């Protein structure tokens, strides 16, 4: 620490040398770094250049495509004749570029059109049913050996309006449908003499049974698990129909077919039609659905209705599956309404707002709700079906709501907790089998009333203006016609 001598920190030659060395090293480092940076820079530039080049190429390409676009399709077509001279590379390039751009949805599944085949392609095996409804037979396709049901379209030669519109609608709707719980229409065939088209047959897939005759013959009712399977299938078929804007309008157990593998299919679309949802202008005939399955709004003469009427029929079928007996066997419209009110209670302005405005409600003599408090629908149902679980009761009573808007839709019904609870729906493959009547013997005559006949009640009666005089008309004189049923139906099993 003395200030005299050379400071220990004084610069010496050594120090200088050292410093120079350090400096040199530093510089060297700097140089290297700079060089490295330069190199990197160069590399980056090179890369960028390459990128720019490709981008430019792309831009050019796009520009070219764009030019094509600007010229537009007509120009392209106009070039057609020159295309023939030098088409190949250009066309190929264009094809590939358009392939790159997007994937388009192709609509090619609709098939074509052509003449009907002859009924002679089928061998008749046995009659399934014959009667007022027309003729249904079991037959085998000669070519493939497949067994089908042949249903003859009933044509009244005296009917000067041509082929029956119900039959044509049935064919069209079945052609449009593709669902495992809806009977499949294979084709339409005609008699051999094609100069006049008089013999028209609908070829349908053959199913061994219909639910009605199974129920009639069973010694024991269906198990709860089996009822669930049947209802689920019915409901998924109806949900398909409704989502395709089709009303069935004649759901009943005799129109539900069952094969030996436990599969249920909805049949007989003779009453079916397309509908416009929430349409206030479309007037539909209320003379649909077999009386025992007919919804109260139809009985009250509403001409604006929707899928809810099918859901009412589902409720009736549900009840029938439980007891093997049709649920509401009214003798006529008035009796049917009475039976409905006995089962479901009397409608009130609260439970069904606006029902008093329906055409036929005017003639109703309802006990005033204040004097006799009616028990709730659920209570009535529980009394009628003591063995049903409470989820089942809630489903059934909601299906049989007098107020159409309170009924669940088919897709809502599929989600109902009734189907989630034990016992679980039985696997279709585990379903019991039954002896098939359709396979062998002639079906005995049915005792269910038939769907109302189209045209039996003309639009005059179907309108809103529905006086008491006309009420007598449908309730009284319509009965005989009712027995005869629609001209055309699809119950072949």
């Amino acid at each position: 620490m003395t200030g005299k001598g050379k400071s220990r920190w004084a610069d010496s030659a050594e120090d200088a040398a050292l410093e120079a060395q350090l400096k040199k090293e530093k510089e060297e480092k700097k140089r290297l770094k700079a060089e490295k940076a330069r190199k990197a820079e160069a590399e980056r530039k090179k890369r960028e250049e390459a990128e720019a080049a490709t981008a430019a190429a792309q831009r050019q390409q796009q520009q070219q495509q764009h030019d094509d676009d600007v010229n537009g399709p007509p120009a392209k077509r106009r070039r057609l004749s020159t295309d023939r001279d030098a088409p190949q590379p250009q066309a190929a390039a264009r094809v590939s570029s358009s392939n790159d751009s997007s994937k388009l949805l192709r609509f090619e599944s609709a098939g074509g059109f052509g003449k009907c085949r002859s009924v002679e392609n089928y061998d008749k095996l046995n009659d399934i049913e014959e009667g007022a409804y027309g003729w249904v037979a079991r037959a085998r396709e000669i070519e493939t050996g497949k067994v089908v049901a042949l249903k003859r379209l009933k044509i009244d030669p005296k009917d000067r309006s041509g082929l029956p519109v119900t039959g044509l609608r049935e064919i069209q709707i079945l052609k449009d449908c593709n669902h495992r719980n809806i009977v499949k229409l294979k084709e339409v065939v005609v008699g051999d003499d094609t100069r006049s088209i008089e013999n028209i047959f609908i070829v349908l897939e053959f199913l061994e049974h219909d639910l009605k005759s199974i129920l009639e013959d069973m010694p024991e009712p269906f198990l709860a698990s089996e009822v669930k399977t049947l209802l689920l299938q019915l409901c998924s078929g109806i949900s398909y129909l409704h989502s395709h804007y089709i009303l069935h309008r004649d759901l009943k157990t005799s129109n539900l077919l069952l094969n030996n593998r436990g599969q249920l299919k909805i049949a007989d679309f003779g009453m079916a039609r397309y509908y416009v949802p929430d349409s206030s202008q479309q007037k539909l005939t209320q003379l649909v659905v077999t009386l025992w399955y007919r919804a109260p709004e139809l009985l009250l003469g509403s001409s604006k209705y929707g899928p809810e009427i099918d859901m009412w029929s589902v409720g009736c079928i549900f009840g029938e599956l439980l007891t093997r007996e049709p649920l509401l066997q009214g003798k006529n419209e008035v009796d049917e309404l009475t039976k409905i009110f006995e089962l479901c209670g009397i409608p009130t302005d609260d439970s069904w707002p606006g029902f008093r405005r329906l055409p036929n409600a005017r003639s109703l003599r309802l006990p005033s709700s204040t004097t006799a408090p009616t028990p709730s629908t659920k209570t009535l149902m529980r009394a009628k079906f003591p063995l049903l679980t409470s989820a089942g009761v809630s489903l059934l009573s909601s299906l049989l709501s007098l107020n159409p808007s309170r009924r669940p839709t088919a897709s809502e019904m599929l989600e109902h907790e009734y189907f989630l609870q034990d016992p679980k729906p039985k696997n279709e493959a585990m379903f019991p089998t039954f002896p098939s009547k359709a396979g062998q013997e002639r079906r005995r005559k049915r005792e269910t009333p038939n769907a109302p006949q189209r045209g039996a009640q003309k639009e005059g009666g179907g309108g809103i203006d529905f006086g008491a005089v006309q009420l007598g008309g449908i309730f009284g004189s319509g009965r005989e016609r009712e027995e005869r049923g629609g001209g055309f139906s699809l119950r072949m099993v």
Partner: protein
Amino acid sequence: MSHMINPLATPEQLYQRRSFGALPTELQDAIFFSTQCLTQAAGLLLQLPQSVTAQANVLLARYWLVEPMMSYEFSDISAASVYLTAKLSPYPRSPRDVALVYNYLLSPSSTFFSPVPSEESPPPPPSNIPSDYYLPEHLYNSFHTRLLKCEARILYSLSFDTHVSLPHPLAITYLQALDFLNTSKSTISKRTLAYLNTALLSPQMLYLTSQPNALAVAAIYNAAKDVGAKMPECEWWEVFDVDREELGFLVVGMRSVEGWGRKMREDVERMRAETDRDKRGGMITRRDVEGELRRRGLSVGNGGHTGERSSEEEPVDMEAEMARRMDEKMAEIEGSA
């Protein structure tokens, strides 16, 4: 999806039509055009919505790809197709209504296909002589019988498949999606629908070769060009699943109908004038066509193949024939433009 698609004609069917019954192509086109126009006129008089009449047009076109044109009287087939589609629609019409309308349209009092007025010959004052279109009961009965027969025949020929999806509602939906191309809603919509309706008359049978979405897009494209609307700059048609190739074809096809139709009217008038024996309406009949064939020295085949002619036609290359027709059409369009 089924309500958006149609069954389409097969290439064989389209080709076969050209050799059907040995009818020359331009005669077939004249029959097709006048019958489709008759169907439209009947639809108007029967107060049917265009959605019903247009379906009748499509069914009729399909029917003629399956059966020879000369099998039945053209007006009867037209009446049957209208009657059938109306019956299946929410607007049924009685056979008598149909009979009265067709009887009127075929009478000399109707202005259907009356000669196009030109400068030299001003249109004659419209005549309305009720006795011209009075329909006696026996004629009504025979018409009724023919109507039902043709109805059954059409259904048989189409395997009872009466499904027709029209492009009109799709076109409106697409226009909405395109925000009406920022032009007047009604102008461009009307123009679009006009193209779609005109396309029903096209000899290229656009409704049998293209799906509704493609027809709708092509009609919008044409309408937009006509009203000078600015279309999106990208390939907007791909959004509606139409490729450029098809769009281009349809755009030209739709645009060509107008000029072609004018020529057809002249053809029809000439043909009818040459066989005109007594006063009658503007619609051509099978007799007119047979007369025309005789004048050309061709044998009259009632649907059957006539030997020499079909063997003569056989070697014609399908593609060459198609190319020739397209070139002709192009020349026609460029000529008229």
